[in-house]
């Protein structure tokens, strides 16, 4: 039986190998490692917390039930993000959505729900004014991102939030490397335009 110490320090490849052997703790570890990245990606794509959780859950269930098909020469993260992105894109093709709010999801009607659905930004020990300004910027950035095409949005999220290399983004999205660069270039151009007033 693998200990929690082993799991926490093991590579994705090793944890997947343990999961393929039937170690339930290994499944938990894989979900623990990728739940926030996957949920964040999907949430920013679909902009509905409950829906994002359903889609993220569906993503992990698909991944875990197909864990035997995973090939170690590929990155596990690419596989997970690919399935998550496909789930989000499939949903977006069926719906029109509103902009995401830093102050909570548009469908939040109680203060508790607004707080639960609000973006949790890491603490940077800012002054109250800095924090207010950061929240305002954050909100406007989120709205600007929400205006991007889903494909551009996915590229920006994978690049800037998840820190993925262009090659991995190309693998996740099933696009040529040149297309990924084009999308990021255009996405940044659009964001620069949307956020222009903030620079003044």
């Amino acid at each position, binding site marked *: 039986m693998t200990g929690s110490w082993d799991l926490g320090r093991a590579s994705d490849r090793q944890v997947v190998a343990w999961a393929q*052997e039937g170690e339930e703790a290994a499944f938990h570890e894989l979900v623990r490692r990728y739940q926030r990245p996957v949920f964040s990606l999907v949430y920013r794509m679909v902009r509905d917390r409950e829906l994002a959780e359903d889609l993220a859950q569906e993503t992990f269930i698909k991944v875990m039930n197909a864990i035997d098909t995973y090939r170690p020469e590929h990155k596990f993260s690419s596989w997970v993000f690919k399935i998550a992105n496909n789930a989000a894109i499939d949903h977006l093709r069926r719906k029109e959505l509103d902009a995401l709010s830093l102050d909570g999801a548009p469908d939040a009607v109680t203060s508790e729900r607004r707080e639960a659905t609000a973006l949790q930004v890491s603490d940077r020990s800012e002054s109250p004014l800095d924090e207010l300004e950061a929240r305002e910027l954050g909100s406007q950035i989120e709205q600007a991102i929400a205006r991007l095409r889903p494909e551009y949005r996915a590229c920006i999220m994978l690049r800037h*939030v998840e820190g993925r290399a262009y090659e991995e983004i190309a693998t996740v999205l099933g696009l040529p490397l040149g297309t990924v660069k084009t999308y990021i270039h255009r996405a940044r151009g659009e964001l620069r335009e949307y956020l222009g007033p903030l620079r003044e």
Partner: protein
Amino acid sequence: MNDDSNLPVHEGPDPALDRWLDGLGRFSPRQGFADRVVAQVRVPLPRWLRGLRNWGRGLVTGVTGWTLLAVASLATAATWGSMLAVGMRYDTVVREGVSISWAEASAMVRAAATDTFVVPAGEVLVAGERWLAATGLPVRGLLIAYGITIMVSAIVLWWLMAEPARTRV
């Protein structure tokens, strides 16, 4: 779509935009997310056990439960006949637990097989029943219990080997 691998990522450095984008946070799902996910996952069996299961599935692929039951019933009769044949032919060995060599044991098995497949099964069973009755063992009870065990085992084996529905990715 025009793709250009030589296209720069952006027209020039934009520290402000980079800072804003790099400062974006991650969202968290509700507490217990991992538990809810794993509760719906089919945790696989260890590889060696899966290999054994897949081998078994290969044996019974295309075989219906009723066919399996029929084969198991026939096997039961053959096994029972062999046991009776061994018991009758080597009565002393069986009753008194006399030590025998491997060569003698092999000869017993060959003789039992001959009795089972060459001698009409009905004769073996009839003779065997008389022999068993003489030993004082509850013949009817043994036969019924053994038969039920084999039937239940066959049904369980068929159910375990049945291909489960799988989620496709």
